[in-house]
């Protein structure tokens, strides 16, 4: 599909979804609220932890808050724009995927934009606020390449998260139970990215750098931005990693689609 057309349809679907969400005002507000509360709880957790102990492995609390905040922000963007992927299991089980397959538009685009997550707005807002606070309490030597890196990071991180969660949700093609914990588990593994990767044993480090490259959305960029390690420039690999993840996710989806048996009717 042409890019311009994809963007056009994406904006059409998004606008439509916003209109629908605004019809259910209570829902919208609850979601917004829960997004923010959740992130605040995350920060309180760190606050409580650090109030008892000195910096963990040379990372101060505010440095970790910055990692957290950037993760919240991308998480917010992803759930706001692409919440539909969390509906895959439902779409498969109720046979609603049929509709998407009958239209001359990529089913992936239709799934991603099937819903928006209002809580994403809450995440984005708290993410930005926390970023600002954390930046004022930490020292970053802003060189031009680091400034240039920020937009690259945001786009790549959003793509990596979307691709991984999307692929995980595609497990619904194989696991046809109505409740599928697998995607949520994969989503939760992003928790590993919230802390310095060196906390974990080597197999886990390998896992979150290579298998599910969550390290590229939090820890590795932070190492680079804070000048923590000489290998920090590896953070520039993030776009490549993102492309790789997207390709894999696409392949997983089309593999799974072969198994789709269109129940009901």
């Amino acid at each position, binding site marked *: 599909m042409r890019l311009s057309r994809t963007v056009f349809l994406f904006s059409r679907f998004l606008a439509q979804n916003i209109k629908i969400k605004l019809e259910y005002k209570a829902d919208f507000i609850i979601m917004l609220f*829960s997004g923010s509360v959740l992130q605040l709880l995350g920060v309180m957790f760190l606050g409580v932890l650090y109030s008892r102990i000195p910096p963990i492995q040379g990372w101060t609390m505010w440095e970790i808050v910055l990692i957290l905040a950037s993760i919240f922000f991308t998480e917010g963007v992803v759930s706001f724009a692409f919440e539909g992927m969390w509906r895959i299991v439902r779409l498969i089980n109720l046979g609603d995927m049929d509709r998407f397959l009958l239209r001359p538009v990529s089913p992936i685009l239709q799934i991603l934009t099937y819903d928006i997550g209002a809580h994403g707005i809450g995440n984005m807002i708290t993410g930005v606020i926390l970023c600002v606070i954390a930046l004022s309490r930490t020292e970053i030597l802003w060189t031009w390449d680091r400034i240039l890196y920020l937009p690259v990071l945001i786009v790549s991180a959003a793509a990596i998260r979307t691709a991984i969660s999307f692929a995980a949700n595609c497990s619904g093609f194989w696991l046809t139970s109505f409740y599928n914990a697998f995607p949520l588990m994969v989503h939760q593994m992003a928790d590993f990215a919230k802390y310095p990767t060196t906390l974990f044993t080597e197999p886990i480090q390998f896992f979150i750098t290579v298998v599910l490259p969550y390290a590229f959305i939090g820890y590795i960029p932070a190492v680079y931005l804070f000048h923590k390690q000489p290998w920090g420039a590896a953070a520039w690999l993030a776009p490549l990693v993102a492309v790789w993840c997207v390709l894999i996710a696409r392949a997983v989806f089309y593999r799974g689609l072969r198994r789709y048996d269109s129940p009901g009717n």
Partner: protein
Amino acid sequence: MLTFQKYLRHVLCAIQETTAYRASYFINIVSQFVSYIAIFFLWRAVYTGNSVIGGMDWNDMQGYLLISLFTSALISGSSEFRVSRSIWTGNIAVELVRPVDYQKANFSITVGNGIAEGVLVAAIGILFALLIGFAVPPASPAAWLCFLLAVAFSFITKFLIVYIFGLFTFWTTGGMGLSWLRRGLTDFFSGAIIPLSFFPGWLKAAADVLPFRGIVSVPATIFIGRLPPSQILATFAVEAAWIAALWWLARLIWHFAMRKVTIHGG
């Protein structure tokens, strides 16, 4: 007697339903462990260089996390999902015409689910504990009894909270936001990821009056022997009061939900 059998049937059906999809069943159980791995390593890093934090040593902490994992597995995401599922699929109409009490039926289903998943999680957990070789289980039979009682309280309290949040689905379109909020609140205030004894004074005072602490903190601290025996009875009394309050709160919310369904047509 027949009433009891009716709900027993729900329990059995739930066991069957939970195990019906085998890959999902095993994955649901594995996923319980995963989020604990991150927490485990975080704490291990915290404990290197500190032997005692917040009155707990590393051995205590491991026992605490293990119980936290176990109690959270008793009511997993799939139970939570089951409560709200019939609401968003519109199947609620079918359930409403049945001669069962919706709240009790859901409780029975959750019990069934808890049996099906909890048994395996407990088994794996015990195996894991033996493997990494720490031993701090309660010494006396009385302590064991208290612990089991605390687990029962934990189960009921968590069910009620999950159920109440599930009922809110009547007013929402069934997004995940609400269940994440629920999870965030319970995890934080129950002490699932960070023991309440680490909290600064004002926060601990808040957590102490909320019902959440019965879910993890109470059974876990009883298990590792950090809840003074003199406080146990009072703690249980507070928990029982909370359970009664939540039970009736749920009934009240149900009442309003039904008004919404029957008057406004869903």
